[in-house]
């Protein structure tokens, strides 16, 4: 049964990583880009404000970083739990 327990641990580590990633995903797009934009209005970026920059540039860059981080972290997690592909 130890393989089953390890599989469960693997899965909950994965779900935790997904949740953290999705919080960042929502924060930069729906947060900084839309809802929290008025709070960032004081920080100006080349003729506009930081919220405008996040909406048109920053969120895309963070999305990229998130996907590569997740892929790297998961491939490591696969090996730690011995569930990587043969």
């Amino acid at each position, binding site marked *: 049964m130890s393989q089953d327990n390890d599989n469960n641990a693997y899965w909950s580590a994965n779900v935790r990583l997904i949740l953290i990633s999705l919080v960042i995903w929502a924060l930069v797009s729906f947060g900084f880009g839309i809802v929290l934009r008025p709070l960032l209005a004081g920080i100006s970026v080349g*003729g506009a404000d930081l919220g405008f920059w996040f909406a048109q540039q920053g969120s*895309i860059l963070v999305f990229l970083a998130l996907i590569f981080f997740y892929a790297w972290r*998961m491939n490591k997690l696969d090996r730690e739990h011995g569930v990587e592909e043969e």
Partner: protein
Amino acid sequence: MDQFTLNLLFVGASFALYIGIAVWARAGSTSEFYAAGRGVHPVTNGMATAADWMSAASFISMAGLIAFTGYDNSSFLMGWTGGYVLLALLLAPYLRKFGKFTVSEFIGDRFYSSTARMVAVICLLVASITYVIGQMQGVGIAFGRFLEIDAFWGLMIGACVVFAYAVFGGMKGVTYTQVAQYCVLITAYTIPAIFISLQLTGNPIPALGLFGEHAASGEPLLAKLDQIVTDLGFAEYTAAHGSTINMVLFTLSLMIGTAGLPHVIMRFFTVPRVSDARWSAGWTLVFIALLYLTAPAVGAMARLNISELMWPNGTDGEAVSVEAIETDPEYAWMATWEKTGLLGWEDKNGDGRIQYYNDANADLQAKAAENGWEGNELTNFNRDILVLANPEIASLPGWVIGLVAAGGLAAALSTAAGLLLAISSAVSHDLLKGQLTPNMSEKNELLAARISMAAAIVVAVILGLNPPGFAAQTVALAFGLAAASIFPALMMGIFSTRINNSGAVAGMLAGLIVTLLYIFLHKGWFFIPDTNSFTDADPLLGPIKSTSFGAIGAAVNFAVAYVVSGMTKETPQEIKDLVQSVRIPRGAGGAVDGH
């Protein structure tokens, strides 16, 4: 060489390239037709997926929508890239581990029900056909422009080309062709943007130029743009105007829809390993981001250029004269675009000048009365022409214009082909071979696939005669439908063992039906004009427009599936085991054909 010949040369050469590759990599077996034999490297796959994904909506339409509204249309930028995060984290690796050919096969097996598979096929067909309508609009505009004919005939010619092109090969032919198409479309998109950014800001990187300094005035580019558009009575470019709730829901719909579109998901079945599926989503987004980081710069800079062309002496000076529009080579693009019926002007007050301003704005009405203007005289400016016209507006060399025409067609064709492949596999593989005629031969299956492609094009052209919006808006409706139907079923299938067959079927149907209903109530039944009961200016539910409803539809899908599953028989043990095995990468061999 004149511009017309140059355009034909560029478009002709790019087509010869695609057809050459398609013939070289022609699909022989059904496995190659659907999934390219699974021998595609993640970077290659990422590039092909990016071409598949970036369609007429991204290439031709999106920057135009951003140009004319500014910040409010940032949803397209965040929505169409943020969906890849959902895809990479929530779906791609698990669907690859599952290892079948189509999205509906997963739904059918996971929910142990052929009804679920059929419902998934229906959802997929509805979303894909709506998507094809948007592509056809883009193809029509591109062909209309470069053949210098009416957009209607452009649409007819485009439909024939798409058909001839899509039936050539399956996924394998399409994969390598799409790599070529990606190279053509990204070059075509960025070269004019670099030129224009250099002209306006001196910075060769458009994404940095956007936040840089406007060289002619020394002010920040966006501040200058804000000032010009407000002088003409339009809404400030960088400010938010619409409802925040609607913007959030619209962005969310586009994100969830991205992760629910069959032709994108199918791509992740073609990588060799589960870990490659994770990387592949990242590489896809890298190639998409190259265009998406440039698009807002293209939009803002084009808006600035157009305003300055219409008011060559500044917004307080005299407007451009009709004579200049008709004779000055700098304005030659206006006459060429007028032939497509997508651009128009009229000297209403007969003063020999064309005043372009917002005639609904009270301040500008006062100014108009003072100066004897009788309304906005740039009477028609279809947003979808902006990107294609952009190099001409900025007076760039002829070869750049030809390149952009080729790029626009590459974008529309690659996506249309990918969608038609998804549609044909749904009909021939899931509907016919999976259900109705399981003993069909491979040869007949391929024949059925090609017939269903033809049928899908005919339906899309008929519905596309009355498009429900600009190309990107039509496509946004398709995303709403995919978000409300396919994505929740896939996600619950992987992350919950509790959701059973009845729950999934009820959820998908509820999500699809409420979303379709909401769209038809606002856009007209089957998009037929004047059959709508509400408009997006005054929607049925508070500020929620029909393009934003997909997120609500998805929530309905989740809720219904959860409640119905709670009331019906529990998921059997072998299905729970299947879900457990999908979650673990080990043991992902090559995919097998389930039938």
